[in-house]
């Protein structure tokens, strides 16, 4: 393609480099604009009037749509507890507004296509870079300012200014430490500001009963039938209110209880003393990124995480057999108390849930 940059911009000396485009001695010539062709609306006044009628009909239709939307607001109130009234309210107000908007849009575009002049114009581009004189003036402005202020010459002023400006941002950053709580020594919140300590422990402790999620009913070992899986929380969790960290504790303490035939539990990979009569309890928090590993496949005794499809083999110490998770689900050691209820022997031996940097 022939480039004649600057042909119509005489005072711009900048000519872009030819780059690597193959310069053809005799390039194919750009044809002129084709002769303008008339539209039916240009030739036939009837069609022109018809198009105009179409446009204002659409605009009036839009008006009708708006009025309908307001009417629908009143005609279709939401009646308490009636889901179908919500549906009607949503549908009929929405259809009215949609009609109002679409009719304006279609009308305006029809107007521009059928009625407005469709003659094409040619406008020249200018090189994006400023004229040389402008650029020189800009450079001059900087150099005058530099001269008058001594910005470039007085390095101590400049250096100290930069240092001060950067340092002035730091207090603002430090303030953001307040996003998370601090330790409060001597109180229950002694480790409130220590994420590693918080992540390392759950509310399970020796003798705490395993209870149904979310009712908090303790679970008897004899009620856990072979092949079943039970969603478990610590019995004390149900007593916590939402203000007292219910969700935070629950996010760590949830457990899945499964009963297999005792001989199915592979002794090499299982801590049999942590199970009871084939009943095993594993943390329900995925060791990948923390979703609840809620899907239990009874026949294969595999646990599947619905978020990223990590699979754990319960018979094999909940080892990862597929998916992006890396570590087995931590096991909760369980036993049975005098009344036959399942209890925890102690807390998990390792942090539950996703890995974190300080975990080891």
């Amino acid at each position, binding site marked *: 393609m022939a480039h004649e940059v600057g042909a119509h911009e005489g005072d711009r000396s900048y000519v872009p480099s030819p780059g690597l485009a193959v310069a053809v001695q005799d390039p194919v010539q750009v*044809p002129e604009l084709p002769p303008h062709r008339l539209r039916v609306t240009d030739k036939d006044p009837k069609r022109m009037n018809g198009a105009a009628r179409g446009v204002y009909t659409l605009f009036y239709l839009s008006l009708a749509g708006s009025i309908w939307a307001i009417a629908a607001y009143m005609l279709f109130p939401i009646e308490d507890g009636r889901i179908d009234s919500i549906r009607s309210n949503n549908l009929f107000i929405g259809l009215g507004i949609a009609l109002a908007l679409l009719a304006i849009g279609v009308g305006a575009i029809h107007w521009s296509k059928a009625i407005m002049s469709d003659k094409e114009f*040619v406008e020249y581009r200018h090189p994006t870079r400023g004229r040389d004189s402008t650029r020189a003036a800009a450079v001059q402005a900087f150099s005058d300012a530099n001269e008058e202020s001594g910005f470039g010459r007085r390095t101590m002023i400049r250096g100290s200014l930069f240092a001060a400006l950067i340092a002035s941002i730091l207090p603002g950053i430090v303030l953001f430490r307040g996003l998370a709580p601090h330790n409060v020594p001597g109180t229950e919140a002694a480790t409130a500001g220590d994420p590693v300590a918080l992540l390392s422990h759950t509310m399970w402790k020796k003798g705490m009963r395993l209870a149904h999620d979310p009712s908090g009913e303790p679970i008897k070992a004899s009620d856990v039938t072979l092949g079943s899986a039970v969603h478990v929380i610590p019995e004390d969790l149900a007593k916590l209110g939402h203000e007292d960290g219910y969700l935070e504790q629950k996010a760590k303490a949830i457990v899945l209880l499964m009963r297999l035939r005792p001989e199915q539990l592979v002794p090499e990979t299982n801590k049999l003393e942590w199970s009871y009569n084939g009943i095993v309890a594993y943390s329900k928090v995925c060791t990948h990124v923390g979703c609840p590993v809620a899907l239990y496949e009874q026949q294969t005794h595999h646990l599947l995480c619905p978020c990223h499809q990590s699979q754990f083999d319960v018979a094999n110490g909940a080892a990862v057999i597929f998916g992006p998770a890396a570590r087995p689900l931590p096991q909760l050691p369980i036993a049975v108390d005098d009344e036959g209820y399942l209890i925890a022997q102690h807390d998990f031996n390792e942090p539950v849930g996703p890995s*974190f940097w300080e975990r080891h």
Partner: protein
Amino acid sequence: MSTATVTEEREPTTVAEREKPLGGRFVGWASNYIDERTSLSGFVKELGRKIFPDHWSFMLGEIALWSFVVVLLSGTFLTFFFQASMVPTLYTGSFAPMRGVEMSAALDSTLRLSFDIRGGLLVRQIHHWAALTFVAGIGVHMLRVFFTGAFRKPRELNWVIGYILFILALAEGFTGYSLPDDLLSGNGLRIIDGMVKGLPVIGTWTSFLLFGGEFPGNQIVGRLYTLHILLLPAILVALLLLHLMLMVINKHTQFAGPARTNENVVGYPMMPVYMSKMGGFFFITFGVIVLIASLFTINPIWNYGPYDPSPVSAGTQPDWYIGFADGALRLVPPHWEFVFLDRTWSFNIIVPVLVLGLFLVLVLIYPFIEAWITGDKREHHIAQRPRNAATRTAIGAAGVVFYAVLWAAAASDLIATHFSLTMEGVIHSLQALLFLGPIIAYFVTKRICIALQKKDREIALHGYESGRIVRLPGGEYIEVHQPVDEYERWKLVGHETNEPLVVRPNAKGRIGFWQNTRAALSRWFFEDRLTPLTNTELEAAVAHQHQELEHIAHEEDDEIRASHERAGFPDAPLEPIDDGRHSETAVHPTHLIAHEPEPGTAPKKNREKESGQ
């Protein structure tokens, strides 16, 4: 608008017209009042009749722009009702199944604005659907800009700005998605928490600061709300204005066509054509979003209930634009985690984050990479047809496939259940496809592009296949090739050909490593190109085509004449065979075609107005 400008251009013909300003006395007075205080007439003079080129693909960015306006409008309405608080409350609103359930004020207010405010659900659904079309609009707009090379100088910076807008749109989407504090979005946040914790050094504390303590805490909704309605939109609006300003400064690209060169813009003026078209398109975008919102439910949080760390449903998917990140997490093989130096290195998090980061950065800086490889420092205002930049198009196709595989991976469980496949089979196939797919896409696309270039050249030089079969006197059958008209031909040949960089020794007489690398990359980028066409060659070919056609016509005439003679009517009139080709071909974006009327009968009104310009 500006009386001054318009009356300057139009010769006032009658006394009445001279005295009465455009638009009436009030508009005239108001325009004058504003102009005397703002110099607005200069602005109108510059931009009022600014020319924009026309092509359907230039509308894709507008989808994003207008969706964003809809997002702003609907979002503002929602803020009047939404409470960004995680204070526990008991729901007592009109949705019966949730009554008496303890939930955060955020979910409670979201349910109330959906079910107790008339039209509230509609606005919430408009907001969500518009957010989805916003991100989708940016996506297709970016693809258009990429594949037509519209990011080349001088528009590289605008590519970067637009790309940041894309990232901001993703961030806006995710923060907004998480606000209702429902079960589904809570699980999304749980995944974010798990990902952040897996990052080396900063992970644990970043999560701790983000959630204000342990996950989920009672802070996150309020913090995301500040990001969602204040910080991110402020940056987004500022960059969006900058994006549009640069578009005006650089002027829009145009496709090669008659009279269109690198030094001009051919198209229609801002006022009135684009004001009407763009304004109309805003209403169409808005209208379509409202129509979808009134007909289709999105994000039925009332079915999910409040967030609880324990339950989760199978088949949980994020909004579509987060899918590629979720998919990247899913494709990691098991056991990618090590304890080293007494610290946990979660490569099952680090690797996908790095891969996604690298992918995003590569797309961000692609204009600079290509400029370095090609050594091209010229300004480009002609949008390329993707086939004419075969290597770039192939790279783009590889990138699209890479993204698509990650995206498909986010639905791996649904693919497995819907098509009765094993989970392992789906994941392993996608893992293989993640590497093989882009490579296959690259080579296939490149070959297709080059084949299309050859086809273009073929049509330009030898005409198109008219479908008309002619039997020559010798019994031979040929298909008549008809030449394309010069306007169509220019679209086929009106592009430049590039040569690879040549390695040149530097001042010390040596060829450095980077010089060699660059030359090698340049060779790779520009290999397999067609030699440029010269005007002489083209004209000769076109002349040959016409000659050929005349020859065929001549032979046909002879044939007909001979058959007339054989039939005993040597003087029968010789009617030329209708070759099916009429002089009228669509070369103009007008969609209404009409035959020229008889001279003298055509209505003059409109054309006269136009010729006065």
